[in-house]
């Protein structure tokens, strides 16, 4: 009993020393590793490049996730993406209006389109993002569970929405990509009278 314990203690000490040494040395990444990483990235970027340049009629979209479904919106309508912070709920508004946020001094209302699409609720966290849409007439934020990033999509790769999509979904949908990303029609969203009316009704209380 005595002998194995001592040996194991020696082993432990040796391992600890190794860890300590590794920590001392690995804080700064060796130049070779750094170089390898950078090279890899460079290669990755170099692959994407020709596609973009080749496809003139490409559409750049921002991909986002709503309840494990992937959606996209044309990036030309997106002012910016902002992490959901300091959401202030507004009383007396319809359920799809989550509330308002302060975006560098501007007050912007945030809506939850999951309510329109009858998608299951996931709860709101700091990880949620707000995609701020804007055109000449309208500006409001759409809640997204996650935003993987922006991507280029060829226009011919976009297919019309299937017949199974009805109602509101069908109304706002622009098309579906091969990667099964549902691209929303930002123009329709921005000019949706429901949203406006509701906004108006929300503002002019008692007209409805």
């Amino acid at each position, binding site marked *: 009993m005595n002998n194995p314990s001592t040996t194991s203690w020696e082993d432990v000490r040796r391992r600890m020393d190794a860890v300590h040494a590794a920590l001392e040395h690995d804080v700064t990444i060796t130049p070779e590793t750094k170089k390898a990483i950078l090279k890899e990235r460079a290669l990755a970027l170099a692959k*994407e490049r020709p596609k*973009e340049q080749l496809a003139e009629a490409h559409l750049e979209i921002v991909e986002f996730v709503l309840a494990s479904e992937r959606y996209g919106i044309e990036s030309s309508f997106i002012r910016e993406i902002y992490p959901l912070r300091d959401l202030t709920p507004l009383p007396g508004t319809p359920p799809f209006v989550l509330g308002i946020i302060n975006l560098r001094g501007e007050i912007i209302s945030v809506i939850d389109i999951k309510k329109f699409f009858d998608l299951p609720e996931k709860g709101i966290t700091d990880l949620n993002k707000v995609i701020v849409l804007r055109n000449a007439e309208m500006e409001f934020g759409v809640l997204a569970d996650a935003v993987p990033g922006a991507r280029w999509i060829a226009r011919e790769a976009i297919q019309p929405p299937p017949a199974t999509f009805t109602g509101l979904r069908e109304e706002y949908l622009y098309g579906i990509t091969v990667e099964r990303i549902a691209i929303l029609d930002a123009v329709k969203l921005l000019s949706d009278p429901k949203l406006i009316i509701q906004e108006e009704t929300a503002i002019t209380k008692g007209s409805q």
Partner: protein
Amino acid sequence: MKFMLNLSTRVKLALAFGVMLAMLLAVAVTAYNGVAKIRESQKRLFEQEFQNALDFAHLLNNENNGRASVLTLLLATNRSDQDYWLKDIHANSRETAEILTNLKDRNQANAALTIELQELETAKEANRETRETQVIPAIKEGNTQRAQELLAGIQQERYVKLRDILERLEKDARKNAFNMVTVSETISRDVVRTFVTFSLVAAVLGIFIVLLLNSSIATPLREVSDVAANIAQGDLSINVAADERRDEVGVLRQNFARMSQSLRATANLAQQISAGDLRVTITPQSEKDVLGNAFAKMVENLRSTTNEITQGVNVLATAASQISTSTAQVAAGAAETATAVTETTTTVEEVKQTAQVSSQKAKFVSESAQRTTQVAQAGKKSVEVSLEGMHRIQSQMQSIAESIVKLSEQSQSIGEIVAVVNDLAEQSNLLAVNAAIEAAKAGEHGKGFGVVAQEIKSLAEQSKQATAQIRGILNDIQKATSTAVMTTEQGSKAVEAGTKLAAEAGDSIRVLADSITEAAQAATQIAASSQQQLVGMDQVAMAMENIKQASHQNVAGIKQTEAAAHNLQELGQRLKRLVDQYKI
């Protein structure tokens, strides 16, 4: 004479003493009369005749003195001497006159003497006359011549005449006195004769009475006393002959005869009894017959005693036979005792050896107990040391647990940092997306910026992946630390249990040490006891030896007892024979 014998002894004695007393009285009276006569004659002799002779002598003397005084006066020269001598002469003259008067008074009965005295007085008076009237005055006047004449003449004549008369008278008186002494002697001789005569008569009478009394009282009494002496010596053969006297001596003789008779009868009875015949019947003479009563009682007692002795002899015979049986049994018992004693002696020897062995064992146990005590002490110390080590281990365990908890907390802070990094990556990602949007807005000019945004996005992705990995590692670390804390806790508990066990072991060792100490003491005591046991066994062995000797002596004694029992049996038979001689 017979009458005389029949008088009682008291009367006899009274008569004898009366006669003797009468004789004594006669003698005394005679003596008294004689003595009275003698005293009379002596008195007369002394008072008259001797006195007369003395007075005449005195007168003569006085006359001489007077003449001498007158002559001295004549010679005296001085007045004082003359006075002295005158006084002397007068005193002398007075004395003379006095004596003369006395003489006259005394001898009035004697006529012849009275005449003589008258004559003397006349002559004396004449002398005095002359002296007083002539001589003394002459002297006083100093006429010594005249005085001398007178004195040598008339006075001288007168003096001579006076002296002659006086001398004659004195001679007569002396003669009378001598006559009186002779008369008195004659009287006394008569008295002595009478006295002697009476005494002789009394003596003869006394002897007669003594002889009479001797023959009538003493002789018969001596006879009786001789018989009594014989009886006193046990001789009852002499008989006292009874006579017909009725005085005390006669009665004594009769009673004596009766007594000797009765004694003879008793002696006969005693002879019978001595011959062993106890069937005799004894009738006491009276209630006060001590001897008879005693004999009766004695015979009775002898009878009962003989009876009892017979019974006793029977008992004795039985007892003797029983004793001989018992001695036989005791002899058998003594033999058994001897065997038992021998066995016991062997056993004692064995026990002694056992005690020796046990003593050695006890000593060995004591020594080993002492060694064990030392070992227990060492064990106690080891336990204490191990307890200390356990406590140290406990505290170290505590510090290990704390270190692990600290580690866990630090990994938590790492997690926080990782979360911050993740957030940063997220933000970077957003920034990259925004940058891409902006680049798209910029059109052809923003293409390079889009590449940068893409690059930033990729970095953010990688950061996120790294943080996810770190998070996984942190989870593993958390699990490991949890396991370590649990293990440490278990170890601590194990150490606690070990401490408790060690404490118990210490207690056990202490108890063990105590019991070993007790065992050592007990072993020492056992050793001492075994030693004592050895000594005791030696004593027992000695005692057994003594018992052996005693049993030997017992056997000898039993043999003696057997002999004694045999003797007793013989004695019983002898006694039986002896008792059988008595006829009850």
